């Protein structure tokens, strides 16, 4: 259960108001360190920053409109060995869902972690936001102009830029499984921010005089989230349908992946890719010259580099059941392959087979790491 509080926004500056909230969390030792997006010295982007000194909170922006890196990976590094301190992490919804998945793969420990989830307005490609910053200079909006749509749930990207496709089709605008939720939807962000806190933590925040807690619901927020989710699901299904009708046979898939250079960027960007040693970085796929030549002999010629289709299919078979749809694989691809759409569309079907929703609960076992004795039975007793 949870409690709620309304944080009054001072000077019509929600970003600064949240900064003060974070300073309280640090100074009153609710957390010892805080992982939070902070503006880069160049001024044209944001990066996750591990803040120890409250004096470093200047330029921190919980509502940053970019997702340069999936923080679930960072949190894995921060919690795999006991950090010995309480870490607060300001995360977007997809990052928390990735954290939940990594808990199940024993790559994140929640004991010392306080998850602070922010209602997500969507994100731009970091390169788009950088360009926007260069065009507008100091005048660039710290939320990329997205915050204005939070009250009604009508989010309009600025100046002809688009949100990343993954964000356009994301059906989880609000964070789940967060210890503290920073609620933006359904409230006027120039005036107030709705904060929802898990019971135990809520009494700590109240005792330390950080927030005056009351009942934990915001009907206006719930209503906006419900509508937004509905719209996103509709858009998501359109994207899935377009992908499926364009990928009817093997040739279509090969065409979609034809410019893959097997740089492994999608794999590096992926928060779920959980293998400690990737098979594609072992001698298994570092073939000797005579192997390539044998293939060329047999087929008359082969595409180089080889094993690109194998790479994507293996990645699918490893992580598609846990794909949380952050779309960072898309952002990382130098050749704009539709990898995120491929993974989400296939993932949606396969997650459905096991009634599994990645990121929903730490108590659900991921399909690739579990089985049931009485499932998947066919007449011949096999598949």
């Amino acid at each position: 259960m949870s409690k709620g509080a309304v944080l009054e926004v001072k000077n019509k500056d929600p970003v600064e108001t949240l900064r003060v909230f974070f300073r309280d969390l640090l100074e009153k030792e609710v957390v010892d360190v805080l992982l939070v997006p902070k503006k880069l010295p160049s001024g044209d982007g944001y990066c996750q920053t591990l803040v120890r000194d409250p004096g470093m909170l200047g330029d921190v922006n919980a509502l940053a409109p970019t997702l340069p890196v999936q923080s679930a990976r960072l949190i894995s590094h921060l919690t795999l060995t006991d950090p010995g301190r309480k870490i607060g992490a300001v995360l977007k919804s997809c990052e928390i869902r990735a954290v939940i998945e990594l808990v199940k793969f024993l790559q994140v420990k929640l004991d010392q972690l306080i998850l602070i989830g922010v209602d997500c307005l969507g994100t731009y490609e970091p390169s788009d936001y950088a360009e926007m910053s260069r065009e507008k200079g100091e005048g660039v909006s710290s939320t990329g102009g997205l915050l204005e749509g939070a009250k009604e749930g009508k989010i309009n990207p600025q100046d002809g830029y688009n949100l990343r496709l993954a964000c356009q089709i994301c059906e989880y605008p609000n964070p789940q499984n967060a210890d503290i939720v920073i609620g933006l939807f359904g409230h006027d962000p120039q005036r107030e921010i709705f904060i929802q806190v898990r019971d135990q933590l809520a009494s700590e925040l109240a005792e330390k005089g950080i927030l005056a807690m009351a009942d934990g619901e915001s009907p206006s927020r719930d209503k906006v989230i419900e509508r937004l989710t509905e719209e996103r699901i509709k858009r998501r299904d359109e994207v899935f349908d377009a992908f499926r009708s364009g990928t009817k046979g093997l040739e279509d898939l090969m065409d979609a992946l034809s410019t893959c250079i097997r740089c492994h960027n999608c794999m590096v960007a992926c928060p779920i890719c959980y293998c400690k040693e990737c098979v594609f970085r072992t001698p298994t796929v570092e073939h000797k010259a005579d192997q390539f030549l044998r293939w060329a002999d047999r087929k008359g010629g082969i595409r180089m580099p080889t094993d690109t289709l194998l790479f994507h299919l293996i990645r699918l078979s490893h992580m598609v059941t846990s794909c949380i749809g952050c779309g960072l694989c898309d952002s990382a691809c130098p050749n704009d392959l539709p990898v995120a759409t491929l993974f989400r569309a296939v993932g949606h079907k396969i997650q459905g087979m096991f009634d599994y929703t990645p990121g929903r609960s730490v108590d659900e076992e991921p399909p690739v790491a579990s089985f049931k004795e009485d499932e998947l039975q066919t007449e011949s007793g096999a598949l």
Partner: protein
Amino acid sequence: MEDFEPRIIAFLCHWCTYTGADLAGTTRQQYPPNIRIIHMMCSGAVDTIYVLKALIDGADGVLIGGCHPGDCHYQTGNYKARRRVAILKEILNQVGFTEDRIWLRWISASEGKLFAGTVTQMVEELKKMGPNPMKKLWVA
């Protein structure tokens, strides 16, 4: 297509299907010679990369042979194999590649006849399907 002879790569569990294949031989069961057997310690040890690599390199079919449910020498390897194969088949389905070239069968060490029958049936089915189109694809 008359003279098309499919090539099947089989990953067989040491404790059941591999021994079953042996039994088929020692009891002189006749079955087509289209199968190349790879000896595994458990169907649960068959990584999806083995199956996919075989198919992408042009094998016409892949047979995975494991112990009947409840009989796994390592308790649960066959259940894990079943889930892994189910996921792989659905992935292939979704991306437009036929899943019918992958067979997972439970064949025990005493079922030499079933092994011979399974291979015979698989060869027939694959002959109907024709050669694996991946065999000719140079871009894979």
